[in-house]
């Protein structure tokens, strides 16, 4: 008898080990069936080797497993099966046994249900904690990055990276369109993300391999000249009028996010968007600060095609609100900066900007060759006296425009005071300055100014003096200005509507 008992325990051990090994090789249902069958085998072997003594108690193992694996139905069926078996082979009262087993099964069912509900509640709390913690992590990092700049481009890059990075909110792609023309149109500004699935996976692989953090990603995006060029080329071409109804206008007017899963074929702007960016689903967030509509943020998942959940939208809302504040502040800062550094009449940079530019330039590149030209409108006093100051102001604005339009990128025009302008030409020698000065003079001469014919030369003209630091080695900025001024004086003295260049022979 002892041997049988030991044998039963040994077989139980072997069966449960084999069952545990096998059960993970299939689905969850397979796993459950293996457990139930294993428990059934164990009690049947017990019955074979030991007999009916305590079989009812042993059967609780089988009933218990069926309840755990298949709930109340499993418990009911197994109770019935065991009761029937005992009735058939041992002549015991089936009803009495069945009721006993059923009480056990129901009790176990409610205990396991209670445990499951505690576990479920705990999982739900963990999930909620994870979600909120992650969101706070993102806001903290993003707030710090936003605080560090008032530069619009950097700000937009920070917002977009925060929305798309895995460390951030993890969307595949995001783009920002900002208001222009006092809210009459939206212009595409910047985007982050791929245009194709392959492009998306390549970027994702790169980020994973290098294990970038959100802060690092923001820095990389800020320093890289052009990220996601393919997407940005398309975004920068976007110019959407808000005169006619569209999904963008709807989002801006309602002030709430728009989740678009099905496309309204009548919305031309939407259909154009969908075609251009191969969108399958998207969310549009209006960027509004204190009633000021600053733009829209658009997100989608073209790579992993993950559906945008309502909780995803909730995650973006605080970030979009924060972004709206930051963008609005950046606009205001730019406006103030422009007011401080730009001439209110002509829109050119002013004398303060010239001084600060020269200071900045000389700190880094003054050893490089550069040229200056000083431009003065000929007989401007006569023009004002003859035609009035209002027309004089108009002429100043028009002259500034001609000068500015003649310059290339990286060349700067300043209104120096009165009717005098300065042009700074980095990396330019005196020959180039001379050619450009001649071009400006000619363009002014060819421009139709109001009442230009009242001028002594029969049209409105300018005289230009140019100088370069290459001509006078290691010359100071003030000295160069004096030199250009002397050349200008020479141009005036020798008949006006002329360009005189400093050849390095007449500096007193």
């Amino acid at each position, binding site marked *: 008898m002892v041997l049988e008992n030991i044998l039963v325990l040994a077989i139980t051990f072997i069966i449960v080990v084999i069952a545990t090994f096998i059960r993970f090789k299939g689905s969850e249902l397979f796993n459950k069936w293996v457990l139930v069958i294993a428990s059934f085998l164990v009690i049947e072997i017990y019955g074979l080797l030991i007999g009916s003594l*305590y079989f009812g108690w042993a059967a609780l193992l089988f009933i218990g497993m069926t309840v755990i694996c298949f709930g109340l139905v499993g418990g009911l069926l197994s109770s019935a099966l065991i009761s029937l078996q005992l009735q058939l082979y041992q002549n015991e009262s089936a009803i009495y046994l069945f009721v006993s087993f059923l009480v056990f099964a129901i009790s176990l069912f409610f205990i396991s249900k209670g445990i499951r509900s505690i576990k479920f509640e705990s999982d739900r709390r963990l999930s909620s904690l994870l979600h909120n913690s992650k969101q706070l992590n993102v806001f903290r990092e993003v707030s710090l990055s936003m605080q560090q700049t008032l530069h619009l481009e950097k700000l937009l890059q920070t917002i977009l990276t925060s929305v798309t990075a895995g460390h951030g909110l*993890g969307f595949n792609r995001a783009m920002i369109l900002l208001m222009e023309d006092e809210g009459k149109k939206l212009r595409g500004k910047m985007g982050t993300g791929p245009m194709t699935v392959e492009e998306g996976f390549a970027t994702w692989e790169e980020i994973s391999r290098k294990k970038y953090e959100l802060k690092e990603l923001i820095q990389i995006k800020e320093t890289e000249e052009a990220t996601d060029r393919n997407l940005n080329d398309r975004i920068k071409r976007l110019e959407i009028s808000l005169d006619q109804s569209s999904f963008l206008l709807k989002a801006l007017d309602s002030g709430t996010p728009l989740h678009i899963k099905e496309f309204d074929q009548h919305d031309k702007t939407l259909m154009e968007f969908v075609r251009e960016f191969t969108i399958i689903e998207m969310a549009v967030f209006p960027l509004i600060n204190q009633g000021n509509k600053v733009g829209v943020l658009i997100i989608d998942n073209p790579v992993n095609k993950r559906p945008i959940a309502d909780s995803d939208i909730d995650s973006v809302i605080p970030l979009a609100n924060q972004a709206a504040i930051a963008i609005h502040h950046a606009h205001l800062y730019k406006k103030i900066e422009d007011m401080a550094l730009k001439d209110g009449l002509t829109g050119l940079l002013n004398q303060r900007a010239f001084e600060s530019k020269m200071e900045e330039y000389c700190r880094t590149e003054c050893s490089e060759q550069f040229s200056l030209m000083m431009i003065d409108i000929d007989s401007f006093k006569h023009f004002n006296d003859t035609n009035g100051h209002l027309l004089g102001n108009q002429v100043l604005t028009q002259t500034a425009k001609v000068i500015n339009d003649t310059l290339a990128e990286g060349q700067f025009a300043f209104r120096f005071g009165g009717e005098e302008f300065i042009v700074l030409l980095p990396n330019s020698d005196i020959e180039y300055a001379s050619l450009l000065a001649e071009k400006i003079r000619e363009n002014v001469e060819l421009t139709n100014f109001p009442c230009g014919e009242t001028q002594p030369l029969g049209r409105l003209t300018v005289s230009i003096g140019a100088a370069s630091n290459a001509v006078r080695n290691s010359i100071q900025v003030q000295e160069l200005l004096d030199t250009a001024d002397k050349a200008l004086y020479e141009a005036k003295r020798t008949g006006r509507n002329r360009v005189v260049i400093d050849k390095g022979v007449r500096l007193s």
Partner: protein
Amino acid sequence: MTGLTVICMLVIFVAVMVLSSRFFYNLELKSYTKKISKVLQLDILELSYSFDQMVYFISLPSNLAVISNARKEDVFIKCEYTSFYLPELVGIRIYIQSQQEDILLAYLPIKDFRLPKLDSLLEQGSINEAEYLKISMNKLIHPATLTEITEEVYKQLQVGKSEMYMGTKGGL
């Protein structure tokens, strides 16, 4: 004697089932990944991943002595499974050991542990979500990954320490 046998039988069945289930589950994950890796020509060690979905529960840098003075060997990881009898990996918890209690520092849920190579295979239809999950689970509980995660968490604690008064490190 037989009554005792019944009790022992029940105990053996339940104990072996509960205590060995995680071992056999992990073994199966390993064996399954090995099999599928062969078919897909994947090297589990070479699969790149990022720490971007790891959620910190404690703000870094932290002034808590137990966090700021933590040594590398104080950082440890516990795998979290759904249940004892039907275990399935749901994530890993990263703790800092202290004399009073272990502090939960961060959590990485398996559903957010995404691997670009597998994402790409999933997109191509070479694997399904269930297969993806099994491979990523095996990758996450691989000793090399756990060591890397421990090092990363310790690095974050160090970075936090050096930037404590500069206010530039995130994490909650």
